[in-house]
């Protein structure tokens, strides 16, 4: 049954913002002088329920729902958010991507902020210094997985360079009835517990048929030597994938009139799932990444890591429904939304693409593994038509087997021939980078872990078992992420944007999350101009909770520098 959902038009959003602004003026904040631009919101955090495709599950709700309410704010405003914890455990809310004072960042154990005790409340106060698409979520235990996430849209103080007739938020997430504590325990005690795509005997015979006995055998041996599994793309399966808290059958729908410019603000608020996003039949013009404007780049699909956001413009001209597909990289299901001129419509759902197999290159091995040379495979020649479309109704589809014709290598999304997938190298900051100085410090951060034990670490240390990263205020720093593991890690820094060294010279995109593919490196630079004790972590929830986090400490400016 389609859910009634009216996307806010740009005009509505403006009206709302203006109204809320007025409300802020009218409201008297105890003990403080009310002034223009002060805006107050209350968020009640409580045990509640979420209904997905007719099935009801326990969840943690913020403001009564999952996701929490979308917070429409305006750059320059000072916002107050009073969070009341009605849970029986401590909670917290982190403002993902926002520049703010450390204590307002909402990560317990950092910046002298501590979790909100049961029955207590905390008022966050943030002077908005930016615009764009962001989100908020719990930073306590596994609460985010249980439903504590919501979107933030901050309108710019100056006219928005991105013109659109309508504006929709699409918050992607992954839902499971399994409690996050149980998931982490199962991952710890039973490696591969959730992997339903392990290589079997029939895979071996298929590989022998294709690559020959010697090559197939050597491939098995190479993986066996490392005690790793090339089908290991996602740690957790059994998820239902949601758009704005809605399942495949709920069919969350964004409305448009043919010929309109739609701005879609796509946020990956899932716990563990990296998605490939496409709208078959519609090109997407990427206009912002992680809330920051980029020079428009036209693509057919993009991969979105956990914690990342992309704003895209689409221009549907036909009077028909389009399907937005978000497929997790292990292809264990999909999330969909519909763009339609009217309620109750739905577009065609394309078949899931085959899942990729990891290769020795994903392990950081670049030797001449004879059997591994699939990188030159012609993916365009893959035959998608032979897949079973009929089985793809509202039921969970079978995970396409990673066998014959599977793409090889983490970065292969199985992009259809002639279609273009966004690469990080395509992202160019809309404005030139303000600080052109070369980094004076380079910090190497190895992303490390022991898959077999589900121990995840940075530089070989679990959180607070190793030394924090410490930089001086104002220092220009290069951070090199060196992924020594076979999983991709979306690395997130609180409190500051970094500039992604993606080959652009003075237009490096400003981001707060960078996906570091398995066995690869990524480097970012930043000017350490936000003093604080900031979390730097992998945004895969269970990697962070297993220890893949460190402190990025920016010492406050010396008194002399202040004057």
């Amino acid at each position, binding site marked *: 049954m389609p859910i009634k959902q009216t996307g806010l038009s740009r005009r509505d959003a403006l009206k709302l913002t203006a109204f809320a602004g007025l409300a802020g003026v009218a409201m008297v904040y105890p003990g403080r002088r009310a002034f223009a631009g002060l805006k107050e919101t209350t968020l009640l955090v409580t045990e509640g329920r979420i209904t997905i495709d007719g099935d009801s599950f326990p969840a943690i709700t913020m403001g009564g729902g999952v996701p929490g309410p979308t917070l429409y704010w305006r750059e320059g405003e000072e916002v107050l958010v009073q969070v009341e914890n009605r849970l029986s455990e401590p909670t917290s809310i982190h403002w993902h991507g926002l520049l703010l004072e450390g204590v307002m960042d909402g990560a317990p*154990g950092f910046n002298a902020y501590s979790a909100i005790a049961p029955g207590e409340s905390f008022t966050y106060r943030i002077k908005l210094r930016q615009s764009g698409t962001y989100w908020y979520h719990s930073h306590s*235990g*596994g609460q985010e997985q249980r439903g504590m996430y919501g979107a933030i849209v901050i309108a710019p103080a100056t006219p928005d360079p991105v013109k659109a007739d309508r504006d929709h938020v699409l918050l992607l997430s992954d839902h499971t009835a399994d409690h996050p*504590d*149980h998931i*982490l*325990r199962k991952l*710890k*005690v*039973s490696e591969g*517990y959730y992997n*339903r*795509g*392990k*290589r*079997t*005997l*029939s895979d071996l015979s298929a590989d022998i048929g294709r690559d020959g006995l010697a090559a197939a055998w050597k491939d098995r*041996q190479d993986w*066996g*030597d*490392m*005690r790793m599994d090339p089908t290991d793309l996602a740690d957790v399966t059994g998820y239902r994938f949601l758009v704005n808290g809605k399942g495949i059958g709920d069919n969350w729908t964004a409305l448009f009139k043919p010929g309109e410019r739609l701005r879609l603000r796509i946020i990956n608020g899932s716990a563990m799932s990296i998605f490939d996003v496409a709208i078959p039949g519609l090109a997407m013009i990427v206009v912002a990444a992680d809330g920051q404007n980029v020079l428009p780049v036209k693509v057919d699909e993009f991969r979105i890591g956990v914690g990342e956001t992309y704003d895209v413009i689409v221009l549907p001209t036909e009077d028909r429904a389009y399907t937005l597909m978000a497929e997790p990289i292990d292809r264990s299901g999909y999330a969909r939304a519909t763009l339609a001129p009217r309620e109750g419509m739905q577009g065609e759902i394309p078949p899931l693409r085959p899942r990729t197999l990891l290769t020795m290159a994903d392990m950081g091995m670049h030797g001449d593994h004879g059997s591994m040379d699939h990188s030159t495979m012609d993916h365009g020649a893959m035959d998608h038509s032979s897949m079973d479309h009929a089985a793809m109704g509202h039921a969970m589809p079978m995970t396409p087997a990673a066998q014959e014709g599977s793409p090889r290598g983490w970065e292969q999304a199985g992009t259809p021939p002639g279609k273009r997938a966004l690469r990080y190298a395509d992202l160019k900051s809309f404005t030139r980078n303000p600080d052109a100085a070369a980094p004076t410090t380079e910090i190497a951060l190895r992303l490390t872990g*022991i898959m*077999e*034990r589900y*121990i*995840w*670490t940075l530089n070989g240390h*679990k*959180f*607070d*078992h190793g030394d924090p990263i410490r930089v001086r205020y104002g220092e220009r720093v290069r951070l090199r992420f060196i992924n020594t593991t076979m999983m991709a890690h979306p690395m997130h820094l609180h409190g500051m944007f970094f500039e992604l060294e993606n080959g652009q010279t003075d237009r490096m995109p400003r981001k707060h999350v960078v996906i570091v593919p398995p066995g690869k490196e990524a480097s970012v630079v930043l000017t350490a101009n936000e003093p604080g004790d900031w979390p730097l972590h992998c945004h895969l929830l269970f990697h*962070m*909770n*297993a*220890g*893949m*986090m460190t402190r990025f400490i920016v010492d406050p400016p010396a008194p002399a520098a202040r004057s």
Partner: protein
Amino acid sequence: MMKRMIKATLAMAALALPLPATAMEGHGDMLIWQFTMDQLEQRWHQGQDSTAWKSNGFIGGDVSKLRLKSEGDVSDGTVEHLEVQALYSVMVHDFWDFQAGIRQDFRPQPQTTHLAIGFQGLAPQFLEVDAQAFLSQRGDVTARLDVETDLPLTQKLILQPHAEVELAAQKVPETETGAGVSEMKLGLRLRYELVKEFAPYIGLAWERKLGETARLAKADGHDPDDLRFVTGLRFWF
């Protein structure tokens, strides 16, 4: 007997359940535990059936754990072997734990207490290895090497080859064990994972006493060679 053992297992499960698997303050330090009944099986043998088990469990953190292991068998209502180990286990390598502790053989009688040390972990090619050396209260030195692996035929149908070798540095009269390689056990079990935690299986278990141990067994009227069809359950929680 089978029933009693299942009851005992359930009781152990009930004891273990109240332990929370919740993350402690901070990230990365949590208490974890697991109990695995790797083999709980009926070994069919021309009217001389026996019931055997092999289990292990642990509680602790990522690095150090308390680990318990038990194995034994029962035939004709008599417990022939009952061995329990309590070990301190510490991670010494990505894939290996060093373990040290006590092994108590409650049966056969007289009971024997051993000091036990060893390494347990995952060898290349996904071989699960448990290598242990024992020093008994009588000064006898023995050793055991246990290797098994899982070969998925499908996502749910798993073939598990298993091999075990027992060694003794000297003759151990109490257990009719001769010096040298005393016994070899080979097993092949095919299980169907209804869920990951619960899998019935069928298989073959072959036990062969060797060298002096075989001669001692023969002299005692026992067949040193024992091949059995087995049916059993593998489960963990």
